[in-house]
């Protein structure tokens, strides 16, 4: 395994470790709330995996969130303040990243028709965007996740009303007594 | 005049009609029972018409449709099935009359359910008799199991429940685990499930699709899977079923149910394997001559003897008759498995002879119970004087079952014995002979004792059962003698199939 692959996959592995921590909490915990917490972490980590997949990096070109920048269309005047804000944030993030990349590849890059040097980073007209689809999917999944959590918590409230405890083994004990 | 197709349809529909009418008039016993009798007479008429066609060489056919994609419910009547149908429908009339007398004389509850299930069982018997393929046969076989279950548990007490459990447990288990498996296996190998003269397995066997050992296994699956044939060790259901009211034991456990079993075995041997295939296939090639059905033949012979021996130990009359039935059924199974012309004909003929004889014996047992409330043989001393007709009939039927002239049974046993010689297993004849002696030992003393011993203490309480019980049993007793003189026609009919 080359270091390149290693670093290329490293991000996924981190996410997998997070995911498995969440999964561990779910299956090891006897406390109902703790189990729900585990589910939460498990799901959040899956969201992270999707988002990691959608990310695009490029040695030269600027990569940003899939929010088109000004001047692209003539009819985006009514876009929300929220969108504008996001656009700005990501722009700044990526500007810095871009600068860094440009420096790194400055002397090796021959494809830019003889242009070199850090100052050219700002001249790159073309902007690349990360894939928007994982974001779209995860927006849905987050909502599904919170719905599940809410339902689970409601059930836990009911269970605690009925049994007076949220420890699984105590509940099973109580049921056994009744039988 | 109806077309053959319509005749088949009518003969299948009539018992179902009876089921409907019985439920419809459940509240009016006289009308209900009247319907049963009328329908049974009509049915016998239709069956006779069909028989005329079949015995003249026609093969009426009726296709109902596909039950499972690629597998049809189809009826095609050949002589063996026709004979069986004739016996079942003919005896249904007598049993119905007898059952009405018995059930009323006995003040049984749930009579409506009883007569409905009874008609349903006859429907199943006829369907099995007419079946043109294994699927149809299997469906009829299972319908019969289910429809007779409520009859076995009729009394509803703990004993009946236990009996029902054994009955259903053994019959369903063997049929699903072995019979169904064997059917599907056959279909897999042969590509068809139809009953074809000469068998359907010869071709695939020649092509090497199944080994001799496989063939032997398949035959064993069929033989044990058809649990209604009550071959040991799957015979326990039959004594268990004796908790049922006597008309049930009479018609179903002497005629319809058990005969469906041995009939199915005969069908499988003749039309699925083909007797040539069974007789000529060796398990081990040329070295030693072990046929694929040999061990089953020995088992059947053992079953004949063992059941007879057990019968001797039984004091309860119905239990003794039940073990006698097991023994007699094994004769037919043996006849089928020997797979020679005479043995198969003997088996087929014994279906008729044994049916008429055994139903008489059961009728008598029922009549004794109704008339004198006696179940045990040891209590029947001197009963013969109070119930002369009943015990006379008993004696006549016993002679037929034993196989002595002038009973019809003498002919079928003769053919079976000849079959043993034909297929080179002459020593099995010994088993038949010993068993006949045993038959004498456990059947004949009953009427003898009833007539010979002086009267007991309370003669005034004993009397003949109601006429509705006595008349049918006299008819069947006479029948078992008359059959002696019709054996030739049965022989000629059965000759068509081998």
């Amino acid at each position: 395994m080359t270091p390149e692959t290693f670093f290329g996959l490293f991000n996924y592995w981190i996410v997998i470790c997070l995911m498995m921590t969440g999964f561990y909490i779910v299956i090891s915990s006897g406390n109902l709330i703790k189990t729900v917490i585990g589910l939460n972490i498990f799901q959040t980590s899956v969201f992270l995996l999707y988002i990691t997949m959608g990310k695009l990096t490029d040695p030269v070109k600027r990569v940003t969130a899939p929010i088109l920048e000004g001047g692209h269309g003539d009819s985006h005047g009514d876009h929300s303040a929220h969108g504008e804000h996001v656009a700005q944030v990501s722009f700044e993030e990526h500007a810095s990243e871009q600068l860094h990349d440009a420096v790194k590849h400055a002397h090796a890059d021959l494809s830019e028709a003889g242009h070199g040097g850090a100052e050219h980073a700002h001249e790159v007209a073309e902007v690349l965007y990360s894939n928007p689809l994982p974001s779209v999917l995860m927006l849905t999944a987050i909502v599904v996740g919170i719905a599940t959590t809410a339902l689970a918590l409601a059930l836990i409230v009911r269970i605690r009303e009925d049994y007076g405890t949220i420890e699984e083994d105590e509940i099973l004990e109580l049921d056994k007594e009744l039988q | 005049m109806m077309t053959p197709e319509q005749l088949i349809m009518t003969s299948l529909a009539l018992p179902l009609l009876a089921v409907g009418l019985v439920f419809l008039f459940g509240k009016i016993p006289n009308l209900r029972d009247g319907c049963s009798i009328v329908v049974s007479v009509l049915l016998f008429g239709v069956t006779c018409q069909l028989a005329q066609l079949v015995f003249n060489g026609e093969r009426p056919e009726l296709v109902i449709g596909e039950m499972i994609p690629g597998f049809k419910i189809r009826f095609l009547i050949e002589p063996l099935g026709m004979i069986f149908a004739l016996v079942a429908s003919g005896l249904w009339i007598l049993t119905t009359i007898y059952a009405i007398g018995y059930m009323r004389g006995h003040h049984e509850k749930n009579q409506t359910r009883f007569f409905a299930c009874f008609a349903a069982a006859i429907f199943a018997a006829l369907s099995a008799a007419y079946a043109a393929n294994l699927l149809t046969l299997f469906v009829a076989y299972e319908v019969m199991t289910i429809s007779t279950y409520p009859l076995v548990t009729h009394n509803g007490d703990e004993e009946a429940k236990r009996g029902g459990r054994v009955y259903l447990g053994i019959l369903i288990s063997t049929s699903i685990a072995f019979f169904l498996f064997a059917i599907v296996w056959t279909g897999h190998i042969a590509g068809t499930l139809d009953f074809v003269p000469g068998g359907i397995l010869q071709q695939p066997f020649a092509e090497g699709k199944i080994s001799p050992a496989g063939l032997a296994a398949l035959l064993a699956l069929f033989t044990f899977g058809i649990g209604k044939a009550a071959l040991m060790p799957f015979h326990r259901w039959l004594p268990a079923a004796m908790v049922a009211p006597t008309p049930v034991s009479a018609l179903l456990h002497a005629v319809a149910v058990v005969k469906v079993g041995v009939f199915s075995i005969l069908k499988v041997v003749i039309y699925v394997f083909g007797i040539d295939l069974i007789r000529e296939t060796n398990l081990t090639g040329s070295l030693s001559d072990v046929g694929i059905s040999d061990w089953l033949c020995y088992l059947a012979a053992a079953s004949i003897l063992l059941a007879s021996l057990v019968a001797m130990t039984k004091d309860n009359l119905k239990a003794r008759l039940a073990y006698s039935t097991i023994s007699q059924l094994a004769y037919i199974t043996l006849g089928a498995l020997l797979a020679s012309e005479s043995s198969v004909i003997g088996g087929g003929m014994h279906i008729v002879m044994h049916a008429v004889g055994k139903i008489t014996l059961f009728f008598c047992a029922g009549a004794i119970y109704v008339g004198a409330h006696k179940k045990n043989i040891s209590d029947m001393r001197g009963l013969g004087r109070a119930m002369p007709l009943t015990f006379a009939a008993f004696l006549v039927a016993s002679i037929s079952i034993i196989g002595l002239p002038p009973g019809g049974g003498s002919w079928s046993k003769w053919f079976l014995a000849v079959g043993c010689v034909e297929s080179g297993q002459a020593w099995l004849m010994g088993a038949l002979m010993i068993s006949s002696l045993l038959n004498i030992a456990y059947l004949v003393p009953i009427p003898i004792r009833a007539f010979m011993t002086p009267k007991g203490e309370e003669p005034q309480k004993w009397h003949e059962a109601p006429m509705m019980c006595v008349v049918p049993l006299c008819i069947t007793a006479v029948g078992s003698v008359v059959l002696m003189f019709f054996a030739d026609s049965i022989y000629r009919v059965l000759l068509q199939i081998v």
Partner: protein
Amino acid sequence: MMEFIVIPILALLFATAITVAVIRNLWAAVMFTGIYSFLGASWMLILDAPDVAFTEAAVGAGVSTILMLATLSLVPRSSRKRGSISNSDFETKDPPRRRVISSLLVVIGTGAMLIYGTLDMPLFGSADAAIQTYPAPSFIEKSQTEMGEHGLPNVVTAVLASYRGYDTLGETAVIFTAGIAVLLILRKNKASDEIGAGQSEVTS
């Protein structure tokens, strides 16, 4: 440069997850879950997914934490423990050793399998990954041309509302379902109801 931000975030994420796993106090566990979501959201922001990041921060770190805290604070005292709320009610018990070991085995197995699967995955950020090259033209170009005058600058919103609009409808349905469900579960039975909650009736 990015590594300087990413590495601490990842380290913190990991540390938080582990903390949640081992911590016994439920209040603390809930708070750490919130923190975990928040850190996750920050990373998403770096990964070019601002929309998700904000939603996760709002929903995962916000709403869900509040819900859990609310659940914890809704403590109808059991008949056995009537009295003041003691902190011990919120201490979870450590799972028995056997369960810990079997859970660890399952988790390690599952994780190893996933890592095995990643070996074939396109490297992080690579432009020739299927996900970046297919479909062509990409959602970004497509959304601009097809939406015509309605073209939203935020492609995520645009896709959400158009191409995958039915997922969004489904998502609404999920929320709605959860709403009904919570109502069904928590709603007290009215006195007019003929049957009681039947807490005492045990049919098995």
